[in-house]
């Protein structure tokens, strides 16, 4: 009760500084929120793209069904292979016909079926990266019935890299805005500490504990973070509502909104604790 009242008085007394502090917090958290959403959605796209990464193993033309069965069993045993689907010559042709149905003349010109039978191989989630896929493809290519192996060679490593860069960028942005928010909050709380020097002196004199003396300042920082976080969450939600008319994307609203408020409170807490530690270690004792 006392702590809350003093914290609110502190906020009001240093109105301008508090406002700046809340403003910086708001801007930082908004930026972080936007970044998180962009990342979320790019991750989503990448996930879908990655799940489509397949290995095609083209087989010798005259392979018989027992050999197919045997080979299928062998490939399924390779570590990281999720599923193996046999595509016969006829099926392959049908698929091509399906894809090229707008240009039927091209296929009618064919007299014999030139397509080889093949296996379509999917890999398990944990092996969905450039190195593992290339390893698996190499192993498959070693069977003598396999003529050729193809997979999304070019874009698998690129996807990989993109995920990593995105992740690093997120961490970097998160780090920078955290430092900025903590610094500004710390500075605002420092001003409050200075403006309440007399009150602190009296508290010491009458036997208030260190914890009691510090609590209002800490709370003040947390409230600043909470307000900054709430405003940024509200703004982000508004932006989502507006933009969702034009583009549809994934917006995990509960996590994002609660996350921003909580993160703001955490930054406010760290900032004010830092200020109190630096400027409130009073006296000789």
């Amino acid at each position, binding site marked *: *009760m*006392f702590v809350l009242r003093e914290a609110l008085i502190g906020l009001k007394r240093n109105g301008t500084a508090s406002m700046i502090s809340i403003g910086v917090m708001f801007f930082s958290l908004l930026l972080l929120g936007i970044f998180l959403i962009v990342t979320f959605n790019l991750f989503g796209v990448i996930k879908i793209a990655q799940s489509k990464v397949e290995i095609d193993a083209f087989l010798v033309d005259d392979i018989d069904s027992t050999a197919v069965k045997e080979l299928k069993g062998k490939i399924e045993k390779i570590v990281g292979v999720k599923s193996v689907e046999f595509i016969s010559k006829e099926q392959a042709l049908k698929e091509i016909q399906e894809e090229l149905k707008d240009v039927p003349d091209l296929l009618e010109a064919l007299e014999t079926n030139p397509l080889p039978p093949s296996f379509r191989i999917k890999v398990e989630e944990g092996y969905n990266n450039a190195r593992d896929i290339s390893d698996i493809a190499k192993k498959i290519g070693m069977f003598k019935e396999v003529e050729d192996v193809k997979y999304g060679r070019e874009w698998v490593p690129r996807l990989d890299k993109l995920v990593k860069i995105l992740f690093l960028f997120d961490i970097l942005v998160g780090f920078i805005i955290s430092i900025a928010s903590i610094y500004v909050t710390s500075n605002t709380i420092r001003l409050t500490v200075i403006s309440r020097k*007399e*009150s602190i*002196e*009296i*508290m*010491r*004199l*009458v*036997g*208030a*504990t*260190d914890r*009691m*003396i510090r609590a209002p300042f800490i709370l003040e920082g947390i409230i600043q973070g909470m307000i900054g976080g709430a405003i940024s969450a509200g703004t982000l939600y508004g932006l989502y509502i507006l933009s969702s008319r034009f583009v549809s994307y994934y917006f995990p609203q509960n996590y994002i909104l609660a996350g921003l408020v909580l993160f703001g409170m955490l930054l406010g807490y760290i900032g004010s604790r830092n200020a109190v530690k630096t400027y409130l270690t009073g*006296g*000789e*004792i």
Partner: protein
Amino acid sequence: MIEIKNVSKVFQKNWYALRDVSLKIEKGEFVFIIGPSGAGKSTLLRLIYMDILPDMGEVIVAGYSSNTIRRHEIPILRRKIGVIFQDFKLLKDKNVYENVAFALEVTGTPRRKIKELVLKALADVGISHKRNAFPYQLSGGEQQKVSIARALVREPFILLADEPTGNIDPEGSKEILELLKEINTKGTAVVMATHQVDLIKYFPRRVVKIEEGRIVEDTGVRP
């Protein structure tokens, strides 16, 4: 109750604010600490409420020794010591009632007890009628009464007064001194530092005289 044993305090190199001071103050005593400005009176009082620790020697207050007291024990000790100053140290944005209540709030007194204790303390110093006034609306003497009420609200065993009449006119000063006497007769020890030697004649009690950081005279307990 208070024992100061061979205490020295050095703020700056080779400059002793106090030098080898020994002093014993018993329960319920009234002691004047006199001496010219800069003699070391405030330093002595600060050592008693452990605002500072001695560089040499030992200060023992209510069983706590300056050599062994822990940081978190100091607030506990302070709750049993009342301190008042020349400049009152009242909070300007709080009224009389709130200033006294503040001392209880920040030490975790239950809300329902605060009102009762504050009103009693204000009545004891005779300032109840001004409980809604702000410090700037009060005379120096009245402000000092408020600060005394704040010091007494926890019923300390000792009241330390550092030049309590320094900013008050002679009439008001006598009134404050009367109040301190009254508080003392109810059992609270009072240690009053002052350089206004004329005040002592109104109330002959034990006088400890300090000059340049040394005790030069101690009359001992007077009835």
